[in-house]
């Protein structure tokens, strides 16, 4: 298809709609006094300062909240990489009983609205196992990301079968085949899966909101939301403080994706599209 006149104007208009709220988030987070007038969209040097960041830090203990977000996210990513690779490899490359059923379950899991399970999971995790206000309780429902398992399976499927046969003829066990042959070849998939997996727990709100009552255990998304819905009315510049917190919450995910955007490719995510 040739370049046509409408593409660049349409894309530019859309890019403005997508980016403006982020720009406004940064400008608003730095304003000493909130200025919702059109002129307030431009940064006025006299009205800028880091006061909102100090305010939100005092209100929600930014450091502690960020640490909780990091532990939650790292736990989910680690679980997904270790157990997801094993399951993805087995589903793609090994013939064993139950494989078909497990693959069917993998597809089904992605259509069940997670929120349906929130009540029984809450009963199990909080009342049954006593894991409220704990990292384990936070991580458990997300411990292995099913989309990532699917991405791994697709990548392992693309490797030529001869590689595996040759290794097996040479006497390599399955674990050795996986470690020395399959894993090095799917390194791009590891990065993609890490990116896909990372945003889930980093941005997740409902589940940690339900099971953490102690402020010390809340990830940043939860403490920020609590600030937004309760404390905000008491602050001098509540929106400024909320936007400062929003910038801190958004920055890691945004920076990671801008840096590695080449690996966040449509073909991996869209592997389920080919009807």
């Amino acid at each position, binding site marked *: 298809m040739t370049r046509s006149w409408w593409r660049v104007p349409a894309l530019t208009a859309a890019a403005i709609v997508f980016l403006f*709220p982020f720009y406004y988030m940064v400008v608003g987070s730095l304003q000493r006094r909130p200025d919702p007038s059109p002129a307030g969209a431009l940064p006025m040097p006299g009205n800028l300062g880091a006061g909102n960041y100090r305010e939100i830090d005092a209100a929600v203990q930014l450091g502690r909240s960020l640490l909780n977000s990091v532990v939650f996210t790292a736990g989910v990513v680690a679980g997904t990489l270790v157990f997801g690779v094993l399951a993805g490899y087995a589903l793609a490359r090994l013939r064993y009983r139950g494989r078909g059923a497990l693959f069917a379950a993998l597809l089904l899991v992605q259509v069940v609205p997670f929120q349906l399970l929130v009540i029984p999971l809450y009963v199990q995790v909080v009342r049954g196992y006593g894991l409220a206000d704990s990292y384990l309780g936070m991580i458990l429902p997300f411990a292995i990301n099913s989309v990532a398992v699917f991405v791994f399976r697709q990548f392992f499927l693309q490797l030529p079968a001869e590689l595996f046969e040759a290794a097996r003829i040479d006497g390599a066990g*399955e674990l050795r085949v996986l470690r020395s042959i399959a894993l090095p070849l799917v390194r791009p998939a590891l990065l993609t899966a890490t990116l896909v997996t990372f945003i889930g727990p980093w941005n997740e709100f409902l589940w940690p909101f339900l099971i953490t009552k102690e402020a010390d255990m809340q990830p940043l998304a939860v403490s920020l939301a609590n600030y937004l819905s309760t404390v905000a009315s008491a602050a001098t510049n509540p929106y400024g403080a909320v936007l400062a917190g929003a910038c801190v919450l958004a920055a890691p995910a945004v920076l990671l994706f801008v840096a590695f955007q080449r690996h966040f490719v449509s073909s991996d995510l869209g592997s389920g599209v080919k009807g």
Partner: protein
Amino acid sequence: MRRLSGRQPIGVLLSAPYAVFVAVVFAYPFGFAVWISCHDYLFTAPGVSVPRPFVGLDNYAAVLADPHVRRAFVNIGIFLAVNVPLTVALSLLLATALNAAIPFRTFFRISFYLPYVTASVAVVGVWLFLFGSDGLVNRVLGDAAPDPSWLVNDVWAMPSIAVFVTWKQLGFFILLYLAALQNVPRELYESAAVDGAGRWRSFRAVTVPGVRPATALVTLLALVTGANLFTEPYLLTGGGGPSGRSASPVLLMYQRGIEQGHPDLAAAIGVLLVAGVLLVAAAQRLLVRPPG
């Protein structure tokens, strides 16, 4: 042994952690949700046993008779009516625009998926600032702004949430359509051009049918998103206001189940929600899939 476990029994071992995960986090809670919904279930302190009598469909009857619950399902209908057409049209349009050698292509891609990778809680903050009564949008609109403002307006609250979610998720759907566009055979465009089809005609005759599987997936995922809706009504419209006009079934599950201590009612809402999703998904399959 071989016959029991297949040719490569180590596969059972390798996939066991994931199988256990699916059983513990999906299969068991799913069954448990149905069980709770048919019993008179109350939260108790650990170790305290109380009778939890079987009550059949009582919880379902109570939930279906509750006007708030019915309203929440209507709200999801409004959400889908706004979100699905917008999502399909805009993501297909932008994916088509991106699917060429465009200057700043990477920049456009990044800007489109930025909202998708950012936490809802973070961007909700900006939207509250933008769309509040005294926010930038209303300042610009002047007298054309709705009164009461978007997020506290009976009519506009739910469509505002639907537009927010469309904006937030569009990047992901653009990626899906970009992948699907790669699979449309170029020869079809060439033969359309030979037949004298203009750009719009070939878009309708080649592109739209060519990406039909992706459209089916996009509408299905939008449906699941609508069913999962919680953060936006909770934060953007202050707990589903005004007067429940933007409440979602999951928001009511939270309020009835956790806040008011009726997990049995909440579980019944959840089961109805999934039944609704499966029903709409089945209908959608019949409508979007080509015949045969």
